[in-house]
């Protein structure tokens, strides 16, 4: 029963938060709403007995990614309202709704048979985190390592791209080149 209540509450909250994200004119509001939405999502994860993911969600999304956005936004002028020239909202809405309906229709159609067998069934009495750890370091070891490398690359590239010095060289213009030649 609590589960049901929790689901609906979280669902309402998440939808609301995300709704704010996509409609808000202020970037700061949008970001805050997004962070909230993320946390509520982690609520679903806890309901679904995926504690590990729930934690990761909070830590990575609400923590790391949001922090990244927050830092990123320092570069922009966030207090000003985001001015957007909107074109044909109707198309956007109708397309989104159509796709959502389709997704739901497909997913709810009786396609996922009863005969699905679990590849990695969770075992009674073993914690979720432990299970994930086992699977992650056995079957998904290579993807895991790749993900690690990817993150590393992303980190470095993020740093490089955002750093001031690189910027100058990347955005080199013809007149800049002249300046360099003349030793200025």
């Amino acid at each position, binding site marked *: 029963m609590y589960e049901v209540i929790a689901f609906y509450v979280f669902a309402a909250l998440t939808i609301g938060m995300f709704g704010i994200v996509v409609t808000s004119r202020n970037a700061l509001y949008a970001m805050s709403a997004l962070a909230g939405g993320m946390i509520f999502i982690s609520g679903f994860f806890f309901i679904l007995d995926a504690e590990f993911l729930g934690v990761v969600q909070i830590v990575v999304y609400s923590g790391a990614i949001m922090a990244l956005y927050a830092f990123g936004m320092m570069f922009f002028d966030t207090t000003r309202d985001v001015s957007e020239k909107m074109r044909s909202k109707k198309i*956007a809405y109708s397309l989104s709704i159509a796709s959502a309906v*389709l997704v739901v229709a*497909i997913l709810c159609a009786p396609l996922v048979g009863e005969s699905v067998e679990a590849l990695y069934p969770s075992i009674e009495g073993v914690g979720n985190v432990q299970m994930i750890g086992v699977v992650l370091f056995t079957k998904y070891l290579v993807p895991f390592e790749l993900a690690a490398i990817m993150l590393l690359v992303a980190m470095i590239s993020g740093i490089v791209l955002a750093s001031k010095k690189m910027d100058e060289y990347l955005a080199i213009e013809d007149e800049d080149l002249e300046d360099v030649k003349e030793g200025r």
Partner: protein
Amino acid sequence: MENYLYTALFAPLASSLFVALFAARPKMLFTGIVASLLIAISMIASFVLLIDVNTYGPLHVSMMDWISAGNLEIPFGFVVDEVSVIMMVTVTLVSTIVHIYSIGYMDHDKSFNRFFSYLSAFVFSMMILVMSDNFVGLFIGWEGVGLCSWLLIGFWYHKHSASWAANEAFIMNRIADLGMLMGLFLIYWSVGSFQYDEFFASLKTMDSTLLATIGLFLFIGAMGKSAQFPLHTWLADAMEGPTPVSALIHAATMVTAGVYLVIRCGELYTLIPDVGFAIASLGAFVALFAASMALVNNDLKRIIAYSTLSQLGYMFVAAGLGAYWIALFHLMTHAFFKSLLFLGAGNVMHAMHDELNIKKMGGLYGSMKATAILMSVASVALAGIYPFAGFFSKDKILEVAFNEGAYFLWFALFIGAGLTAFYSFRLVMLVFFGEKEYEKYGIHPHEAQPFVIYALLPLGLLAIVSGFLEHTFEGFVTRLLAQYEIHIEHGTEALLIAATLGIALSGIAFAVYMYRRGGFPKSWEERFCYKLLSNQYYIPKLYELYIMRPFSALANFAWQKIDTKVVDLTVDLIAKMVYSTGEKSRKMQSGNLSDMLRWMVVGMIGLLILAFVYRPMV
């Protein structure tokens, strides 16, 4: 004996190839002499073979395989039997004389060597034609003589008319060759072989429709080579070639190849008398038709060409009615006197500096006695006056027509004989007697070189005496060919001979009488009949108007309208459609990320719909 066979066959080839080495060089006398010698060797070998065949019977050799595929086996095989040896002797004899004659005739031509090369190549092709033991071998020779005829008619290629005539001859012959090829294919698929003997052996087992079809197809081939109506126009135009060529190819040998083919397939045509009768009727028609055109023509060589055409008609009458040996006999005698006539005409042309209009000659007897006598002999022989060669062979043909009860054909030939006599002597009179018209044009005619005249003497002799060989000839060739019995009462026969002789003599007399007095009045030339005849019944015009021009127009239409405007345009249109779709849809690529994202969602929806429609049913 095989060596003689190969000598007879390959000596002309050797001659041709040897002389061809010097083809591009200026005149070298020895090429002519070597060529004549080699052809003479071939002639001697042919005579040896004639004696041999007479004593020991036919000779059959198989040299090597040529084509083999599937069930088809075509060898290079040669047969020397009674018919082919007669052809060989005739061909090589006339060829030798023509070669020697040409040394004199082509004396001043800068392409002297080339001429001999072509001429010898022609002899080689002709030998293959007559000696082959199968139909495809015959076809090799058939096309080979066509090629040489093309080369030789167009020998003076800088003349537009010559190259045009050469092409016309080749193409006309090709049309007929297609018919012949069809006949060959039919033979192959009914018999499984192209060999004469196998084909004749299986004739009995084939039904008559099939035989008639084969016979007709083969005759179409013969019609082309022998210039029978409606494929006859090329022969008169072929007179553009040098005169020795006309004598050899377009009188004595190549044009008789069609007759040879019918004679060779005598066993076939005997079984299909209806087709034979059709051939004979066509022959009789051509005999009269060509003779009528010869009546009014003023071109020295064309007159003789029409006469050849007419005589070929006679031969076809005989062959079509089943008198094969008589056809062959006429073929042989005709070869002698007709080539003589042409070669004499060549002398006249030389004397007249290549003037061909007989109206501009006259009175040449004074300056060229020998030629005049020889040509007169040939003309008498052609007219069929006793005791000259033409009498024996031509009269026999008339008897055959009468004997078969084909009185209509007989009558046509009878009239033809009269016409022949008339136009032959019209020519003789206009050229050699009467007013010396040439003086008006400042020409000083002279007799040909003596050796040229000597070379013609054998032909003159043969034109006189070969008729007496009739019975020997009959005995010899009827070993192979069907016997032909003439069942006419002696009285009737004598009457017939007398009638024929009478009409021929009256034709001559009429010609002599008329042209002594200066010929027909000018007003005749205005008449419709005269115009019709002198324009060759407007047939060349009809061909040009209704075949050549429409073909040309259709070809242009097919190219400019159909090919570029329909077929190619369709292809280009498809390409353009692709281009224009790209051109139009590039607007989609506005560069705006929002738009792209929208397109992405559209695509996603499309995919989702597909996924939904084709979802796996549980």
